[in-house]
């Protein structure tokens, strides 16, 4: 067991845990934007930063990645931490002025937009939390979308910004997207959905007859798992 202190609270943790995990287990709230239980932490948004002191050394670190250590003292709301968090949200608000989720989060944390940052006008809601790409690569395994360019021009897209050949229409990326940037449209009858520029025919469940998953997704699962497609054509409720 590892003994550390978070916000003056003495806590026991297991080796290998991150500060964020331990904080959450102990009811201490640290805001995040790029963290998801199914994904390895990425440390990209910097919202979860905390002030961590080990011996004589104090550092500002992302709690989602920093491993707990014996004698570590953590402050989740020090001045430096609040200043860094404030800047992160102010920058994101200026980047995605249309995002309702960001506005709400800023309000919750008592952060006002910085008037000197001229809001971007491209109507993008993407905050580059990287969850869609990480999901597509590590959870789904298809790598249909990825990053392109770098710096402020970095964006998530399909290769060559053309309709993705490898997308299976599973919609996982739209599901994890925290800001509503990725759009997936389904027809009224549910027989097709459109995402990343492509339209996918949906498969009906053998049992209940509802449309539940894209045919392409089932073909992919069949190919990678070896299970025949016919056996996969049953929706979750009917299993």
């Amino acid at each position, binding site marked *: 067991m590892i003994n550390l202190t978070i916000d003056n609270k003495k806590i026991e943790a297991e080796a290998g845990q991150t500060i964020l995990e331990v904080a959450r287990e102990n009811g201490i709230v640290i805001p995040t934007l790029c963290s998801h239980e199914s994904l390895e932490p990425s*440390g*990209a*948004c*910097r*919202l979860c*930063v905390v002030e961590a002191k080990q011996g004589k050394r104090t550092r*500002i*670190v*992302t709690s989602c*990645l*920093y*491993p707990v250590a014996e004698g570590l003292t953590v402050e989740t709301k020090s001045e*430096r931490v609040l*200043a*860094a968090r*404030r*800047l*992160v949200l102010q*920058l*994101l608000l*200026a*980047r995605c002025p249309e995002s309702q989720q960001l506005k709400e989060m800023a309000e919750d944390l008592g952060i006002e937009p*910085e008037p*000197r*940052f*001229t809001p971007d006008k491209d109507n993008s809601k993407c*905050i*580059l939390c*990287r969850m869609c790409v990480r999901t597509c690569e590590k959870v789904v395994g298809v790598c249909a979308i990825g*990053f392109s*360019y*770098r*710096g*402020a*021009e*970095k964006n998530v897209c399909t290769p060559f910004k053309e309709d993705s050949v490898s997308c299976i229409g599973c919609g996982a990326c739209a599901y994890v997207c925290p800001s509503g940037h990725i759009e997936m449209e389904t027809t009224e009858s549910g027989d097709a959905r459109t995402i990343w520029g492509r339209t996918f025919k949906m498969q009906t469940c053998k049992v209940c007859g509802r449309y539940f998953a894209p045919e392409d997704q089932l073909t992919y699962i069949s190919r990678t798992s070896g299970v025949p497609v016919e056996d996969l054509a049953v929706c979750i409720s009917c299993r």
Partner: protein
Amino acid sequence: MMSKIKSFDELKSVQERLKAGRDPKKPCITICVGTGCLAYGTQKLVDSFREELAKRGLTDTIEFRTTGCHGFCERGPMIVIFPEKVFYQRVGLTDAGEIIDKTLLKGEIIDQLLYIDPATGEKVVHEDDVPFYKKQTRLVFGLNSKVDPASMEDYLAIGGYSALGKALTGMKPEEIIQEVIKANLRGRGGGGFPAGWKWDSTRKAEGDPKYIVCNADEGDPGAYMDRSLLEGNPHLVLEGMIIGAYAIGSSQGYIYVRNEYPLAVKNINIAIRQAREAGLLGENIFGTGFSFDVKINRGGGAFVCGESSALFASLEGRAGEPRAKYIHATDKGLYDKPTNLNNVETWANVPFIINRGADWYAGIGTENSKGTKIFSLVGKINNTGLVEVPMGTTLREIVFDIGGGIPDGRKFKAIQTGGPSGGCIPEKHLDMRVDFDELTKIGSMMGSGGMIVMDERNCMVDVARYFTNFLVSESCGKCVPCREGIRRMRDILVDIAEGRGREGDVELLEKMAAAIIDGSLCALGSSAPNPVISTIRYFRDEYKAHIEEKRCPAGVCKALITYSVDAENCTGCTVCSKVCPTGAASGERKKVHAIDPAKCTKCGACRESCKFDAIIVR
């Protein structure tokens, strides 16, 4: 084709034989063909020398050697004629014949090719008397003039690879590490981290295989020391790496070279091939059972790949995005294996420490910064070039004694060190002793060793804007503070430079800087605010002038200056009206000209072309 050297004893006899076979009294023409001198057209001069020597049947009597950079780049093309070490500079591309006939055959000095000491007005004949060289301590870099980088024999003849022999056959790995720790060799790439401790951590780390990496990404604009070392003496760097690999317990090394350095890549590839042929790379080196080899990887054009974790990502075939360094590279680096990364110059220092001992090395420099450092002294400076001095030398000595001061009689304003991660240092600190800690105290950093000199015609707001803009285009884009924060800082700086600065901008920049330093994922982001913070610290009044008075004191920021004609100096030569792209500058022959501010785009063509100093920029 090198034949295999199977033991340290064999190396010694090869060195002896090569040295004995070279008559130090034999006349030898050495000429620099580093990238800088090649840009002067030196290849033509090289070809010409070979031709002229052949024509006169002198190819066997007079030695001719092409070498890497000598450092006095302002004065190229240049040659040094041994044994007297006659120094000729700004040699004309067709001077070969004359030099051979007069100096080599008749012993006559050609006056007009001599360097004139601006302090005394006297001509200097010998290389060692040139003030630029005299005041340096060219421990590492000085070897460049002694070897043809494509000749392993040259390197062996001056004792090359002795340190490797001593280390592999006479020292245990832990002993070697202790020597490097005792010598207190600190990283020359920017971090200044004690190399010995890094080696120690890597050696002790769990995991296999272990890698060593040479960081030759040298991205700081204005810095080219590493390029010149790799181009000019690749075997020195290799020797350091092999010693390090042995000490750490690694059998695979990588050299990551910037894409924009083709000659360095070429020369290091030649050196590796030769070292393999000689058995100094590969299996069972010197018969000790230790094996090590090296691969070269070229960068793809990304400044961020100078950061170690981004460099590893690039080596792994991915985009150069850094990752959090809470787990050190020495534990999990390249391919998540223990990795020791050091800069080119750091590796190059290792053979000296092994050969002459840690105590000797620690006798050079200051208390916490040992040894020498190679700096690239560029910008508004008379003697542009590469300079090597002991740590602790003052800025004044570097800029004025060695650098020859500011051209055109202008005044020193600031010197920028540490590249885009560093800061600007004003005149009042010219007497500071240059070392890692002193530079950090003053708000800058050593960085890789770039030193950019500025005069009163440089605007510090413009400089801050320039660096911030550079970092905006080089940011990998992964984390919010850097990707979003630095471009917002840049936007505010652009506003200030273009006359749209507002009250409170400087304070906002300072606040943003603190949060970006704290919040950024890697050192690119966390050091990005340094140029802004240091220029605000030392040149706050210049920011005030831009914001409050909409004035650029240095006459640089286009939106805040006007070009006009000085009626007293103007002779009506019409040159400005000819070069003006918009017709703003106009006038009749022999009559005072005028510039129409409505049409003027402030491109600067008129000021550049006016021979009568008749263009005023305010």
